[in-house]
Each structure stands twice: as structure tokens, then as C-alpha cells.
């Protein structure tokens, strides 16, 4: 069911790309094509496969010859294609509460329906959420495959945490070697890290350009971008995708052309977007508002040394603001709000999520202190059955009315 979907998606996007006129927007389609191709590889059964936690080092795994992906990607894909409800119901039928994270319920349902391909092994991370770790443990048990757990310290990137995590990443490499039967090739790993660094440089440019007023990003250009593009790190695809975005945004910025029509209110979106089809983005655009930055669309790490990648990879994981005390996350959000000149922020407060809901009050207070009003939604970003479009529309519109009234409009 899922493999044919990705195959059809990839061929469909290839056809559309081939038919595009030279001046038409292409970046989002290129990105979607690479993701569809990744989906094909994940579900083809022809490649070494590792299901992972969100913070796994995908570029290192690429250098080790492993196709890898965080499991939540499957939940998002199922929601975006309208196929998530039977999976959620399958999980709920086994006793998973509807108050659990929809991403994890969806993947659990897909596992129970035997729609998840059997991995060669799994690599979980203890951050940013324990639900993801539990899901990977369930998958490992279900498929009778070995699980390596990367224990991510919660203290941020201090030197002892970096050393501790770097040691674990070295142990992870040995774990992969044991399970693939192939020794790690430092040259291949170094090349993957080089490509990851190139992509990082280009992403910095992309995000720098995206700050322009009006924003060059069209409605869905950067939707789900930062988190998902991490799956491509280490490959040439990541470099090409980032370069395409950079070039496209640069052209728009130089021409003074905005991506969204009539951008009057600039918004920041926290954490994940709503993954199922909803009228939200279109409604925002109709109201003259645009999401110009997502929390997860930020480069928070330094380049990694290709000759000795482990400390740099550890530092990268530890700089992700979803790891550790919420103060670091608030500091990033305030910086993004300032850099992108946003008028307000939307926190979806994804149900059943510590990151989404646990610190919402502190985040709201931190942004308010910086003069940024926050709208807290209460949505399950995956489960369309709990979605009330009317109430959501009222909240959004009232929020925009409040912002405009503050601006004297």
C-alpha cells in the first residue's frame, strides 16, 4: 500500500517537473521528489533500513550505508494522504488512548496492520520525547530486531555532555558495523559529513533569505521543511534541494516578489504543522497573514569536522532547542521572532506532547515579554477526527483582529 504510493508520487512529481516552464517555482517540488524517493527506499525492502528517533544522525547513517528515517515521518505521511484514520483506530483498538501522541498512535497502528517494513535494526533517541523512544521499543519488539538507544543528556551542549554523547555515537557506529557486517569507512563518512556541511551552509542562506519582507516563501514552501530535510543530510540530494531553494528565494527577494499574496501579518509557527488536509494555510492567506518562519526551520549547529565527526555530531544534537530546559527553546523563538519580524506566533499545542503542551505557558510568557502575542491552539496534528474547523477559524481570525488592533489597523 505505501510503496506504490511513494512510487506513484515520485513519478508524478518527475512528470510535473519535466513539464514546468523555466521560470516556474521548482524548489518545493524538488524537495517533495527527494522525500518521495526516500519513501520508496524505505519501503522497497531492497535497502538496509533503520527506523530511528528524531535526533538520530542521519548523515552519519548515510555514510554507514544505511537508509534511515525517524518513525514519526510515517505518521505525518499517513495524515497528509488521508490514510491515517484506520491506523489510529487500529492502535486505539489495542488500548492506546486517543490522548496519546497522534504521530506515535498512527505508526503503532501501521505496525499492527503490518504496513511498516521490517528494519534491519533501530536507533532510538531519548530526546526530544519519551513517546518516540517507547514507539521504537515497540517496533523493535514487534520485528524482533535489535535496538540501539542514544541517551541524549538534557543539559545542553556542555563539554561533558558532548563527550558522553560522542562516545555513544561511536558505540552506535560499532553497533551498525556489527549488524551490517561491514566496517565503517572513514572516507565515506567524511564525504557524507562534507555534504552535510555544504547543505548547512546553503540552509543558512535559505533561512536568511526567508527573513525578507515580503517573505519569498510560498504557502507551503517551508512547510515541514527543517525537520524533514534532516533526513536527507549526508546525501547530495540535501545539497541540491537546499541550493534550489536558495536560488529560487534569491530570485524572488531580488525581484521584491513575495511568496504569499498580500502578506500583511507575519506569523511564526511553533513545533510541527497540522499534517492532515485542513483549510488553515489557505484561510490565513485569505486573511492577509503568512507563516514566515517555523520553529524547526533553523540551523542551530556549527559545521562538523569530517575527519573527526563524533564531537561535532554530538554538539549538533545537543544544540537542538527541543533538548533540555525550555529556556533555550524560548531564546531561539525570541531570536526567530526578531529576525523574521513576526507579528505573532501560533503554538498548535499538539495533544499528548510534552514539547507541544508541557511548556506552553512559559513559551507564551517568554514571547509576550518580547512583544509577540501567542495563539495556543489545541489540536492533534495527526488526527483529523478531533479537528473543529469552525472553532479554529474563530481563534485564528480573532488573533489576527487582535494583532491588527494593536497595530492600529
Amino acid at each position, binding site marked *: 500500500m505505501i510503496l506504490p504510493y511513494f512510487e506513484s508520487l515520485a513519478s508524478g512529481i518527475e512528470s510535473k517537473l519535466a513539464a514546468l516552464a523555466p521560470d516556474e517555482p521548482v524548489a518545493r517540488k524538488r524537495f517533495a521528489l527527494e522525500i518521495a524517493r526516500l519513501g520508496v527506499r524505505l519501503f522497497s525492502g531492497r535497502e538496509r533500513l533503520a527506523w530511528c528517533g528524531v535526533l538520530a544522525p542521519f548523515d552519519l547513517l548515510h555514510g554507514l550505508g544505511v537508509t534511515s528515517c525517524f518513525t514519526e515521518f510515517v505518521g505525518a505521511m499517513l495524515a497528509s494522504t488521508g490514510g491515517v484514520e484506520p491506523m489510529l483506530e487500529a492502535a486505539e483498538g489495542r488500548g492506546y488512548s486517543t490522548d496519546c501522541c497522534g504521530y506515535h498512535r498512527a505508526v503503532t497502528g501501521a505496525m499492527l496492520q503490518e504496513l511498516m517494513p521490517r528494519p534491519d535494526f533501530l536507533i532510538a533517541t531519548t530526546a526530544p520525547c519519551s513517546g518516540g523512544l517507547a514507539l521504537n521499543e515497540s517496533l523493535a519488539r514487534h520485528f524482533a530486531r535489535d535496538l540501539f538507544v542514544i541517551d541524549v543528556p538534557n543539559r545542553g551542549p556542555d563539554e561533558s555532555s558532548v563527550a558522553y554523547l560522542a562516545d555513544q555515537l561511536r558505540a552506535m557506529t560499532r553497533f551498525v558495523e556489527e549488524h551490517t557486517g561491514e566496517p565503517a569507512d572513514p572516507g565515506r563518512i567524511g564525504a557524507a559529513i562534507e555534504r552535510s556541511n555544504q547543505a548547512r551552509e546553503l540552509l543558512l542562506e535559505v533561512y536568511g533569505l526567508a527573513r525578507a519582507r515580503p517573505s519569498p516563501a510560498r504557502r507551503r514552501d517551508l512547510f515541514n521543511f527543517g525537520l524533514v530535510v534532516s533526513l536527507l543530510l549526508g546525501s547530495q540530494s540535501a545539497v541540491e534541494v537546499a541550493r534550489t531553494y536558495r536560488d529560487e528565494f534569491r530570485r524572488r527577494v531580488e525581484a521584491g516578489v513575495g511568496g504569499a499574496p498580500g502578506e500583511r501579518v507575519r506569523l511564526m509557527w511553533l513545533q510541527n504543522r497540522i499534517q492532515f488536509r485542513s483549510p488553515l494555510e489557505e484561510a490565513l492567506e485569505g486573511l492577509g497573514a503568512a507563516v514566515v518562519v517555523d520553529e524547526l526551520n533553523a540551523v542551530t549547529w556549527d559545521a562538523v569536522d569530517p575527519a573527526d565527526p563524533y564531537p561535532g555530531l554530538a554538539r549538533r544534537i545537543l544544540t537542538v532547542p527541543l533538548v533540555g530546559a525550555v529556556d533555550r527553546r524560548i531564546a531561539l523563538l525570541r531570536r526567530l521572532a526578531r529576525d523574521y519580524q513576526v507579528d505573532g506566533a501560533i503554538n498548535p499545542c499538539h495533544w499528548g506532547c510534552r514539547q507541544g503542551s508541557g511548556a506552553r505557558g512559559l513559551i507564551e510568557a517568554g514571547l509576550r515579554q518580547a512583544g509577540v*502575542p501567542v495563539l*495556543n491552539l*489545541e489540536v492533534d496534528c495527526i488526527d483529523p477526527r*478531533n479537528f473543529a474547523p*469552525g*472553532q479554529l477559524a*474563530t*481563534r485564528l*481570525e*480573532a488573533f489576527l*483582529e*487582535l494583532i491588527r*488592533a494593536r497595530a492600529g489597523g
Partner: protein
Amino acid sequence: MVYLGIDIGSLSCDAVLVDEGERVVAWRVVPTGARNLEAIAAARRGVLEQAGVDEVSVAATVATGYGRNRVDGRLAAVTEITCHARGVRALLPGTRLLVDIGGQDSKAILLDGEGRVAEFAMNDKCAAGTGRFLEAMARGLQVELADLAELDRQATERTLTLSSMCTVFAESEVVSLIAEGAAVAEIVNGLHRAIAARTQALVRRIAPAVDGLQVAMSGGVARNAGVVSAVSAALGREVSVPAEPDTVGALGAALIARERHG
């Protein structure tokens, strides 16, 4: 010329006409029922008849409520939050905290010194504690919705608590309490205090301290003096209620129509 505000909610459709001087000329409340277009037409027709004016006298219409985008000929659709704030500013100047409990939503709205919306919070996930909730509870108790306030007044012990605010669970809990011999008046009082506790939590999200704030309630549930009293006790503040609390949103819409009309 007159200016029309229409508030199309889940339980009632309210219409208010104001004149050039922002004085209320007429108002009308009709049940929304299953067909909101018919309710909109009935409210519009009713208020025009009451005022003795025809359609061409309406210079501008502003719509609010969940069906606001279904009102034909509107100058603008504005959310209930902004409209209730504008309405209460006209009726009870100086209000800084407004609690609006309607048919399926409850909202806490913090107003700045000039009566504009500074912050707001809406009920999340479900309609617990709203007009629909009270309707279901009245049905479970086999009493009329309009009698809840009087029943609350008759309660003497006022200590009964409900463990669930889920409309389905609370209704079955109410039925169980009756079977166990609890007095209806005590159950009603318990329901009202439960709504007040939920309202208090909503208020805390936007106003951690309410000391010194002038508080008002609007929406159909504000007609229930038992709920108003319970909210007042929960917040520790006197709560003012305009004479026609369910028309505050429509009044606000009419006043916005007056302001925005060329």
C-alpha cells in the same frame, strides 16, 4: 440610516439595529435550529419589523458568530471575540474582563483601558461548560433550562461536586445522583460551580490576577443567575450582566458596522 449586527450562534441567532447615534433601535433573538440561513433571515426580518424600517434603510451589516460567513450582504465578518468586546464597551464601560459563555464556546476576553481586546482564551477540545452542556444537564434532570437559576437558589448545602465535565459522562452522573436521592437543587448548584471552576481556569490563562478588574458576563448562559453567582464566587469579583446578555455580540457587530461604514 440604521446599522445591523447579526450574531449567528449554534443555539440562537441574534440581530441588533443601531442608529447613527449608536443607540439600539431594535433587537431580536431567534433559535438557530438546524437551518442557519433561515434563522438569519428570520432574525433580520424580525428586527426590521420591530424597528419599522425596511431593508434599504440598513446602511451596513456586520456578521459575527460561527455562521458569520453565511450572512449575505455583509460589510464584514468579525469574530465574536471582537464583537462581544465592542458590545460590552458600549453597555458596561470600564469592563476589563469579559466572560462570554455561548452555545458551544466559552471565552475569556481581557480588554485594555480603551475597551479593545488585549488577550483572549477559548474553551479547548469540547463544549463542556457551555450552553449545550447546560441543555444536556437540564434534560438529564428533567427540568426546564430556564428553571436552573431558581433551582440553584433553592440549594441549601451547596457542597455537591461532579467528577466529570464531559457532557456525556456528566449527564449519566446526574442521572446516577438523582437515583441515589440527591436533591435536584443541589445537583444544579454543583453543575453551576463546576462551570464556574472551568471558567476560572479559562480566565487564569489570560489574567493570572483579577484583583481590581471590572468583570462582566455575556452570552446566553449569562441569563442564568446561578452560573453568574458561581462565576462571581470563583473569581472573587462582582460580575455585571447587561440587560440582554445574549445580544452583546450582535450589538458589537452593529456598532462595528456603524464605525466602518463610509
